[in-house]
């Protein structure tokens, strides 16, 4: 079964470490996104799996077959790895027509002319670009070029498909369309997709698993909603989700009933009930993560009074910045609401599950509920 295994993969460019000791297993038929800010090593990782870049150390296995091993000196060329690659700029050959672009890979596999013709026509139909078969890439729009690139990559039927920010050159509307298309292709082709993006929304909506990287280091490798609900550290918490999560520094102390009393700068104090016990000493520094949708504004079950600092209604939702004991908190309220700026209003934390991070290591300590709040 097609399964990609990366063991201790490291890539150095001179002194610069692009990817640092990466371990990862990509399951058969998964749709994995490599997510992270620019320069985090995600493209390098993808290129190393595809064989376009040689790792400095480590081992890569595709389908049970070792394609790279620094110890054994194995380096299978990319043409023999049976993988597809979709480039960010499409890399369509400018001197070939759409038809020739798609048939090139099949010619390399020495298919017969009739088989090639049949396959190319099938792909042209599948991607709805039949009428462009005789055109040159320069005569197509970005979205059409994108489709040709996909058709070309799918032609040889690779079991693994790599994509390097394939949607970044498209406009917003086309991007939405192509996302749906990619999900459909993933289902129809039964292939494993590995996808690089810096757009967290794309990663969330498309993938079965997200691999989040920063400065060449793996941060978290989990299903998207798990990453959203239980971010491994403050970096992940901050990177995923829009508007951004509120990360509030605070100091904790034990209470009698097994809760944690969290005191924030500015005087706000919260009673936090962890879902599982964890060790800490009184006065330890934490960071509390508050997702905007869990900060409820103007509800009947409000716990504390705050002030509206700004309100940005967009119809479906309203993004609010609320002032609470010197803190500025991002909040999202669903529905066509608006709040007068400057008004006092009740704020509640009743429904959410919150993450508590260690202030020193930024790692996730535990999840829990907020029972009570008192401001100044």
């Amino acid at each position, binding site marked *: 079964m097609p399964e990609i295994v990366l063991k201790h993969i490291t890539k150095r460019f001179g002194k610069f470490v692009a990817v640092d000791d990466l371990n990862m297993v990509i399951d058969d038929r998964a749709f994995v996104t490599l997510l992270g800010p620019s320069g985090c090593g995600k493209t390098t990782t993808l*290129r190393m799996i*595809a064989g*376009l*870049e*040689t790792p400095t150390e480590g081992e890569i296995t595709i389908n049970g077959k070792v394609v790279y091993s620094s110890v054994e000196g194995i380096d299978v*060329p*990319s*043409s*023999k790895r049976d*993988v*597809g*690659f979709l*480039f960010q*700029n499409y*890399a369509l*050959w*400018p*001197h070939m027509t759409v038809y020739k672009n798609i048939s*090139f*890979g099949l010619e*390399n*596999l020495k298919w017969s002319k009739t088989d090639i013709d049949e396959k190319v026509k099938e792909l042209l139909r599948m991607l709805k670009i039949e009428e462009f078969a005789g055109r*040159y890439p*320069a005569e197509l729009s970005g979205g059409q070029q994108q489709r040709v690139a996909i058709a*070309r990559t799918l*032609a*040889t039927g690779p079991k693994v498909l790599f994509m390097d920010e394939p949607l970044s050159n498209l406009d917003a509307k086309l991007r939405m369309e192509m996302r749906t298309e990619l999900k459909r292709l993933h289902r129809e082709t039964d292939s494993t997709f590995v996808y690089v993006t810096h757009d967290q929304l794309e990663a969330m909506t498309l993938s079965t698993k997200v691999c989040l990287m920063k400065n060449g280091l793996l941060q978290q490798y989990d299903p998207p909603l798990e990453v959203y609900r239980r971010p491994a550290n403050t970096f992940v918490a901050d990177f995923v989700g829009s508007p951004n999560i509120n990360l509030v520094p605070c100091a904790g102390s034990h209470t009698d009933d097994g809760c944690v009393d969290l005191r924030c700068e500015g005087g706000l104090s919260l009673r936090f009930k962890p879902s599982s016990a964890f060790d800490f000493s009184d006065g330890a520094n934490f960071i509390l993560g508050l997702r905007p949708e869990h900060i409820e504004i103007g509800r009947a079950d409000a716990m504390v009074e705050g002030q509206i600092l700004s309100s940005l209604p967009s119809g479906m939702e309203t993004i609010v910045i609320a002032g609470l004991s010197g803190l500025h908190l991002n909040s999202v309220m669903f529905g066509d609401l608006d709040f007068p700026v400057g008004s006092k209003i009740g704020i509640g934390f009743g429904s959410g599950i919150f993450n508590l991070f260690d202030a020193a290591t930024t790692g996730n300590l535990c999840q829990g509920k907020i029972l009570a709040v008192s401001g100044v």
Partner: protein
Amino acid sequence: MNAKTRINNLKSYVKKPYNIILLVLLVVLAYLTLLPLVTIFMDTFTVHASEVRMVKGSVKGDLTLYHWKKMFASGVTSQKTFYEPFANTMLVAFLSCLLAIIIGGFFAWVVTRTNIKYKGFISTVFVFPYIMPSWTLAMAWLNFFRNSRIGGAPGIFTVLTGIPTPDWFAYGMFPIIMVQGMHYAPFAYILIGGILRNMDANLEEAAQLLHASRFRIMTKITLPIVRPALLSTFLLVFSSTMSAFAVPAFLGTPVRFNVLTTQMYRTLNGMNPGYGYIMALVMIIIGVSILMLNQWVTGRRKAYTTITGKSSNISLVNLRRMRNPLSVLLIIILLLVAILPLVSFAVESFILAPGDYSLSNFTTEFWIGEGRPDIANSEPGILRNKSIYLGLWNSLRLSVLVSLIAGTVGILAGYSIAKRRGSHLATAVNNLTFFPYLMPSMAFGAIYLSMFAVRRGFIPALYGSFALLVIVGAVKYLPFASRSGINAMLQLSGEIEEAGTILGISWWKRMIRIIIPIQKTTFISGYLLPFISCMRELSLFILLVSPSTRILTTLLFQYNEKGWNQYANAINLLIVVIVVGFNLLVNKVTGASIDKGIGGNA
């Protein structure tokens, strides 16, 4: 439109500096590039003073078809004066161009696509022959392979091995092709290397992932994509080799192997200027056609812009066991072509009796001697020689003036053309600034000879004056400067200047404080290229110098013609040292290099 609107429109038109610049350039350049074409055309139908005796019953200034008839339709005469040199020119140009592309293309591929060692060194040294004057390699060839039958004393090769070189090897077509091929190889290297370096590596990687072999990638992807650029390289090199003068003059003249340029020099300096003007016209027509063909090749639908600048992570061909031997081999070739010639100049300039390389025959006579009556009519050594110092002074003065004029006009032209891009006026000026590039140097010199030999309106006869050299140099090298000026301006978004305009900053201040500082490097190269080109130029000036305006290169040519080999070698060394030294200095100061970083930083 009423009168007031018109006046206001006119006012706002002339208030913009770029409109004024374009209008002035249009008039001046039309006068300096188009009008001379008319005068040279007329000259091919005119009886010149020296031709009165040949054209029966004519007086000076008469109209005649004599030159055209003699040139194209007079049996053996036409054969000898035109058809033979023409055929030689085409053959030599074609073959040396092919050689240049093969050598340059091979080096470019090796440096950009394999893991060869010493890339930086190879790239830097490989362009040396191109920086040096074109006759450098020709002189070196003679230093090594002269034979006693034609060249007097035998060359170093014969002295060392005892094997006399045959005439075909030492002189004529073969060495001309070899030397020009090597001289223009760096030019091909720069162009092809630039293409390979900028070609989107993803295009090749995409093919590799689709199971294409290296050979198939090369033949089906890489070559077809670079083909238009390759063809364009071929045409550019061809137009250079076709108009080359110095190399055929050094290597061909001793065995009467003539090409159009050497023939043109002979006739314009001799009794038949009419012939020379026709040849100049023919060369201009060929040159213009080649470059128009080039425009057409690069402008077609199939000429792609493959430049993305994202090929830094291309996978290099692993040469494996070949890596070390090939690296060393390339270094040796480079030393032979780029360094050894210089050594030979030094050696030759210290030798008393040519062909004798024993230690006792070494002398400093030709550098610091007072001059001996038995050698070269008591000509003093070049470091004590007044005419050399005059030539050096003239060369430097000329190069500085030419580069200042061409560079500054180039910046202004680039600025104005970029500002009014798309308008008829800008297109016309753009074409005019580029026009001199199409013309072979010697033909360009010839048209100025024709134009300024006599008084034209308020401009006196400039022939023999230093000013004429400055004008011809500045116009000829304007294309280099205006190209870099236009490129610099196109890279700069218009908003940068507009931000200054809105703040009410004057045009002068915008240019000096905003635009020029930002694009410093590009503009400096607009000054640098004319300087270096001018310093080593021979064929452009050779028809126009007079005894008082002689420059180093024409002096060298004269010494060589007289057979004063040691002086010629010494002067050549002087020129090479100045040109290469200046080039290195500017590289250091500005960080801009001629090889455009093809070798990378490795």
